[in-house]
Structures are given as C-alpha cells and as structure tokens.
C-alpha cells in the first residue's frame, strides 16, 4: 500500500492505495466520485474517461500511483459556480443521451477535444469520440450536441442567451 495525493475537481484528496489500483477504483470506491463508470475495465468503451492535468485518460487502465500529484477533472467538476458548462447544456438540449451511462465519459472526451480544437467539423468530432461507445443513441444527437457546444463556447450560438436553458420546441 502507498499514500496517493491527488487534486480532484479542485479539492485535494489523500487515500491509501495498492500498487496496482487503477484511478477509476480510487475515484469511485475511495473518494465516492461516481460519474466515471465501469464499462469494460480494459480501456475499450470510454465510460471511465476523465482529464488528468487537462489531458484525456481512460481511468480504468490508468495506474493510480502514476498520477500522483496530478489534477483530475471529472464531470462533477465541469460546471463553474453552479452554472452548467455549454457541453452539459447542449447535451441536455439536443437529447445527447438516452440511458445516460456513457454520458460522463462522452462529455469529458468532448471537453478534452474542444479544448484543443474549438472549431471542429462534423467528421473531426466523430473521430475524436470514436473511443466512446454508446449503444442507445446512434451518436447523431451526441455529435450535434458537441458542435452546438463549440458554437456556444465561441459565442456564436444565435438567438439563445447564455446561461439559460432554451424552452421546449413545440
């Protein structure tokens, strides 16, 4: 066992972990940060995706001690001052989920992508999210949500004031 100290969503955490414990286990079972999910434990489905020092990682195949001292961001840490991040807002608006299980990993992958490519094409979004599996939606509304979030982040979303959820479309 060894002592792990990491910052998660802005707060410092310490935990005793085994040498082979992975980051997903630490987040969920030690720190009770539940949004990253167990989907496959082999890095294939993306449901466990988090950011480590701003970079996308599959936490199920990330050794916990290997991220000693790092800053981890999960979906819980995405909103600021209680406001939804544009990705969260657009996933909600555009129905970018059905069962919701892949959603935390999907949004974090999208966040990492938009951080480095803020003005993407349809095809670039698809390629960036190719490592996040979704069985429910068929991906169309997910891609739509990410493109809308990119526009909102760039301040280009017409007709919809920032900070408000659009009403229903009758």
């Amino acid at each position, binding site marked *: 066992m060894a002592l792990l100290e990491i910052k998660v969503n802005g707060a410092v955490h310490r935990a005793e972990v085994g040498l082979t414990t992975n980051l997903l286990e630490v987040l969920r079972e030690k720190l009770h940060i539940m949004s990253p999910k167990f989907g496959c434990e*082999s890095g294939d489905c993306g449901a466990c995706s988090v950011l480590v020092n701003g970079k996308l990682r599959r936490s199920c195949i990330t050794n916990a001690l290997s991220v000693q001292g790092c800053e981890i961001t999960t979906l819980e840490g995405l909103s600021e001052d209680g406001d939804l991040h544009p990705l969260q807002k657009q996933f909600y608006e555009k129905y970018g989920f059905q069962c919701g299980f892949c959603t935390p990993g999907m949004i974090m992958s999208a966040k990492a992508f938009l951080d480095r490519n803020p003005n993407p094409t349809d095809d670039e979004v698809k390629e960036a999210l190719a490592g996040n599996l979704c069985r429910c939606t068929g*991906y169309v509304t997910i891609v739509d949500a990410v493109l809308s979030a990119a526009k909102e982040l760039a301040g280009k979303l017409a007709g919809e004031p920032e900070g408000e959820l659009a009403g229903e479309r009758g």
Partner: protein
Amino acid sequence: MKKRGKGLAVAFYPTGLGGGGDFSHAIVKIKPDGTADLIIGTVELGQGARTVLPQMAAEVLGIPYEHVRVTNSDTDSCPICFGTFASRVTYFTGNAVVQAATNVKQMLLAEAATLLDTTPDTLEIVNGIIQVPDDPKKSISIGDVAFSALYVKHKFLVGNGCFGRAASRPDPETGACDPLATLAWAATWVEVEVDTETGVVEIIDSKSVYDVGKAINPALVRGQIIGGVAMGTSWTLLESLYPYYPSPEHEARSFRDYAIATTMDIPTMESRMVECLSVGGPFGAKGMGEMTANPPAPAIVNAVHDAVGVWITKLPLTPEKVLRALEANGRAASAEH
C-alpha cells in the same frame, strides 16, 4: 471496382407481450400546491418512459409537464408494471396513466365545482387554472382547490388506473390467437456501395419511414429511430458472438472482438414519421422502440444483391462473406459457359 445498389425492406411490430397477459397500473396524486405525483412501477431504460408518461398526465390534468413528478423506484411504493419490454410501455402504462389522471381530475373538478358554486361539467382545466370558460369570476387555481380538499376537507386526491390484455393461448394445431394490442409499420430504402476487391460494404444513404401512431414526444421517437437503425446496421455488418457458428471457437469475450458501431461506423440515416393512430392506445400511440432495429439488415442485403448480384443470407455481412459469394458466383457463371 465499386458498385452501387439499392434495397428495400418493410417491417411491422406488435405492441405488448406476445400472446397478451401483461398489464400496468398507475397512481396519480395531487399535492397541496396543485402539482401532481405520478407513481408507476415502470423501469426507465433511457427510452424516455419517465418523460412521455408525465407528458400524458400533464395533458389530461391541464397542468404544465414540469409540474408532474415521477416516482418509479421500488416495489413497496410503486404499483405493478409488467415490465419495460415488448414495446409496451407507452401504450399499456400510458393508458393506465391516462385513466389515473382522468380519475383524479374528476375529483378536482368536483371540489372546484363546490368552491365555485357550479357543476363539474361546466369546468375545464387550462394551464393549472380550473375555470368556467369565458367566465373569469368562476376560476380558481388547481393549487387552491388541492389545498382546500386536502387540508380543509380531508379528501385524499388520488386516482388509480390500470390497463392490460388477457392472455390469449394459441391453438395447439393452428396457432390461432390474438397476440397483440396494435401494430406499427416501417419501410426502409438503402443505397450501398460494394467494393468488389475488398468486399467492404458502405452505406451511402438510408431513408426510412416509420408509422408510430401518435408521437407523444417526437424528439424521443427520433431517438429510438436513430438508435434502432444504428443498432440494426451494427448487427448487420459487424456483430456475431460465434464467428464460426455452430462451433464455439473464438467466441467473443470483450469489446475488442465483439465490435459494436462507433461514431465512425454510423452511416447517413434519414427518417420520417407518419402517424396512423392506433385504435386503443393513449392519444392513438403505438409502441415502436424495437421495430426500428429490424429493417436495416434485409434492406442492406437486398441492396448488396442489387449492386453485385449475390445474396448474403447469413449475417453478419462481412467483407469475407461478400468476397466468397462473388467468387462462388464467378465460378458458377464460368461453369455455365
């Protein structure tokens, strides 16, 4: 060489447990502030039951959708629902919800009538206000009515509803029975491009029309359509647990050898809805969540035949199968000469 072809497939799908015997119950109760609690035993899988069912309750009660809270948590507090399968929830639980909401609405109107000194049949509920149409003096908020009933008169504002169909056992010789509540319909038209050197089949275009009865929430219906077509396409081109069936050799163990569609595998899919109302469904709705996965496979197979003249009658439609079929076709053609 790349060759294109087009293929058609139609589908139909029954609503309800095959052979019947399934049912759902629902409870709608009104809170002191006039909002509603919808209590059901229905499980939400992501298809949107917890959205369309309160939409129906809100419609019947004349209150906003946002004023209906849904509880579907456990078997102690929630009534029986047979289950979320067989495309049955919108129709069966929906009918139960409409009944329950209708019943509690009658109680509200009776109480309001007493308070407004009129009879229930003169009243309607619009946007949470119970009123005699065109008479602004005879109107009262649903919240005030509920408070009066619950706190002053101690009347419990709760309505129950149930809907089901008795089991219909098939005749042992003829199979005669009545196995369904209603049927939904679909037609899919697909264009593919087949590479005769690699065997790869690419879907260039896909158009589908679905009859869903009354679409209670068109966005969620679209979600089922896109998700279903994606799943059906993935089944057709990518998936088999036993690649050498019937041998169990190389049975799939993980996402690495059981490849499901990713963002890179979803073709252009366009769809439209038509609404042929069901006879007995709530607002004329039909179940459609399963039907959407069925037409892609045969439409793609038919399109491949149109493109390169081979029938692939065993899924999945892998490049290997296409190449072997082309090869066999070529041998057959040259044998004829």
